[in-house]
């Protein structure tokens, strides 16, 4: 029979684990709220840039601009894989990595850009295609940081003659649900919108420059949005994972307490029997 003290130590250790998982859950919940606010705040900006770009593209001056060109299927593809920097968030990273592997198998000479430490750690060991990596960005999320990443991606795209750049990331649906999205980042495909104005604008300095600058801005915003989405999804995943961990710990504690009490009872019973039989032996 398990030693009473042993069971007691186990109960104590599980209790402290439960406390930690519970605290992590709370932290994730508050970070999630903050990130969600950021997503909502970024929307008007993103919508406006998209509308401007759409208006310009509709007029259609030049689709031969590299940022807005058609995919030819000739050049190389780049996959940007967005994972988290930290673990303990359930299957968040595994699903993304699996998805990326499927795409890489179909397209073996594609290059990889890893955003997030978990994905980088995996692909560094299992693939030779990693060209760039950005780790530990999620701790201090800031527009200027995501802009730097976007600038590097842009110059990579323009200098290296890549055919297209796809992003694989988690999109936040709800605290318990994340959707894996595979989306073409470059060349830009502006989202259809009802707010396109038919007005004939005057462009300054000229349409070409505006379209190029707007395209760059569009990528800045898009990367920012993708990072926010992924970060929100990560916090959501962590929240659920930690919630079930806390629940499991509570269950385990209940079971162990039951065990402990049974063992205690058994010990007492044996003791009484020993005393009683001892007393009887003396009487005789």
């Amino acid at each position, binding site marked *: 029979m398990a030693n009473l003290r042993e069971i007691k130590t186990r109960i104590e250790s599980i209790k402290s684990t439960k406390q930690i998982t519970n605290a992590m859950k709370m932290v994730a919940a508050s970070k999630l709220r903050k990130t969600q606010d*950021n997503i909502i*705040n*970024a929307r*008007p*900006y993103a919508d*406006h*840039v998209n509308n*401007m770009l759409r208006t*310009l593209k509709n007029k259609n001056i030049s689709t031969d601009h590299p940022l807005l060109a058609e995919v030819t299927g000739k050049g190389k593809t780049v996959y940007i894989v967005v994972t988290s920097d930290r673990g303990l968030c359930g299957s968040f990273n595994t699903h993304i990595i699996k998805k990326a592997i499927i795409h890489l198998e179909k397209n073996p000479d594609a290059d990889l850009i890893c955003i997030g430490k978990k994905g980088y750690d995996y692909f560094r060991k299992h693939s030779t295609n990693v060209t760039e990596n950005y780790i530990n960005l999620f701790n201090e999320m800031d*527009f*200027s940081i995501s*802009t730097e990443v976007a600038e590097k991606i842009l110059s990579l795209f323009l200098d290296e003659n890549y055919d297209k750049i796809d992003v694989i990331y988690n999109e936040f649906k709800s605290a318990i649900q994340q959707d894996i999205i595979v989306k073409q980042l470059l060349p830009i495909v502006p989202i259809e919108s009802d707010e396109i*104005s038919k*007005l*004939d*604008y*005057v*462009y*300054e*300095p000229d349409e070409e*420059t*505006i379209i190029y*600058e*707007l395209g760059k*801005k569009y990528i*800045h*915003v898009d990367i*920012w949005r993708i990072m926010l989405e992924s970060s929100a999804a990560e916090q959501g995943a962590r929240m659920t994972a930690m919630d079930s961990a806390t629940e499991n710990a509570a269950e385990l504690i209940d079971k162990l307490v039951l065990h402990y009490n049974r063992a205690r009872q058994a010990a007492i019973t044996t003791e009484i029997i020993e005393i009683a039989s001892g007393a009887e032996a003396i009487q005789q």
Partner: protein
Amino acid sequence: MSKIHITVIQPTQIRIDGEYDHIIVPGVDGDFGIYFDHTPFITKIRTGVLQLFQNDKSEEYAIHDGFVTVENNIVKIVCDTIEKKDEIDAARAKASKERAEKRLKSSEENINFRRAEASLKKALVRLELNSK
């Protein structure tokens, strides 16, 4: 006089949203004013000072990198950063000005000149507005 509606949108928030008499925007090809009934217009902003006028009072902001669209008396400005005079950290602006100058002067290769130049301009505009 009829007013125009101005919205200034940053990636993290809607910064300004209100009615003004007219505004002066630092465009890439020079400053220009926007009054009531301006023609539909899209342009890029350079780093500079944005002035908003309302009932003889004016507000000034340091603005950096963005676009303006004008359409039916609704002006939308998207920009990365925008600061009012009292929000400017003069010490920081000065430090970043010196840093950028040093970067531009150095003979090393692999310097991102465009970025250094942009941050120098940004710092100069901030300092200029701050000293007004």
